[in-house]
């Protein structure tokens, strides 16, 4: 195998190393259609330079597909960006910017099953690209909030009109954000956590 010698593998910078006390991690997925700002959001809140993990999808996996690489004879590489936020000396939060197509999700063991919750990013110019992912999360019982990324040329709908269009029940938060700004992305994550907390309080989380 063509493998770099152990001395040359670049690891985390010293300041990016986790303390030895780090006991466990939790994760949140940031999901949405093509180009809605997933990578941007992961990058703006991460304490480390965002990294990429890849997985190779074999012919069999591609075969079930309708419009993506189905004529290709080679394996497809699917990439996912992620970032990290240290919560305490014991606890670490990871954020995964996940491709919207469900056929990619099974490539990473437990990606959605174990996630505390999800942020669905939407772009008002192309709302429908995030419809499918919301349905998939609902089917899987993954709690989520919706973040409306503010692209300057996108139509601006009142939140309640968006709620109706997205067929979301009244308790699901919908907030506007600018994924390029750390404070804005942080607010989106806080909104998700408050929502999860309210579900925990009401005992409604399944």
């Amino acid at each position, binding site marked *: 195998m063509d493998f770099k010698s152990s001395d040359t593998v670049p690891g985390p910078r010293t300041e990016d190393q986790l*303390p030895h006390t780090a006991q466990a991690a939790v994760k949140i997925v940031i999901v949405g259609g093509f180009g809605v700002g997933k990578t941007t959001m992961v990058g703006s809140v991460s304490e480390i330079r965002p990294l990429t993990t890849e997985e190779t999808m074999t012919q069999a996996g591609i075969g079930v597909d309708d419009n993506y690489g189905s004529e290709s004879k080679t394996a497809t590489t699917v990439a996912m960006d992620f970032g990290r936020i240290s919560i305490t000396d014991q606890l670490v939060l990871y954020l995964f910017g996940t491709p919207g197509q469900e056929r990619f999700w099974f490539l990473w063991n437990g990606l959605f099953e174990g996630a505390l919750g999800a942020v669905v990013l939407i772009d008002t110019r192309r709302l429908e690209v995030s419809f499918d992912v919301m349905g998939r999360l609902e089917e899987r019982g993954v709690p989520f909030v919706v973040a409306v990324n503010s692209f300057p040329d996108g139509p601006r709908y009142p939140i309640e009109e968006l709620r109706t269009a997205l067929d979301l029940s009244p308790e699901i938060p919908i907030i506007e954000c600018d994924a390029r700004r750390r404070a804005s992305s942080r607010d989106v994550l806080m909104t998700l956590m408050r929502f999860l907390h309210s579900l925990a309080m009401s005992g409604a989380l399944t």
Partner: protein
Amino acid sequence: MTPPQRKRRRPRPEHVPPPLPSTPPAAEGGGEEGDKKNPERLYVISGADGARAELDLVTLIVARAAAPPSVTPEQAALLRLCLAPLSVAELSAYLDLPFSAMTALITELITAELVQARAPIVRQALPDRSLLEAVMHGLQKL
């Protein structure tokens, strides 16, 4: 202009998460000792044969011994990287290995008792409010 209209879906029964009894809480200390008594406990969630290590993207991997001379260059690189805890996802990124290859490599090292796996805290039917509060507190400091 009216936006396009979506139709809500219902949860499918097969996706309702089962209770996960073996997840250690974050606050619990002394993980080392528990691991020694039962090394499988932390990383095997289930499995028909019980042999497959279920490593999550955010399972934290920590070296528990120096690399013996017998290890491959790949294993040595991994052991060097996880002198401090590092997630499977980060290892995959730094070593430039696909997730599946990464989990296979780590599973070998777990079996050889050269690394320890610290299981993630996953979403549960009965959520841990103090965990959510800890995360909120951490985000506030950002």
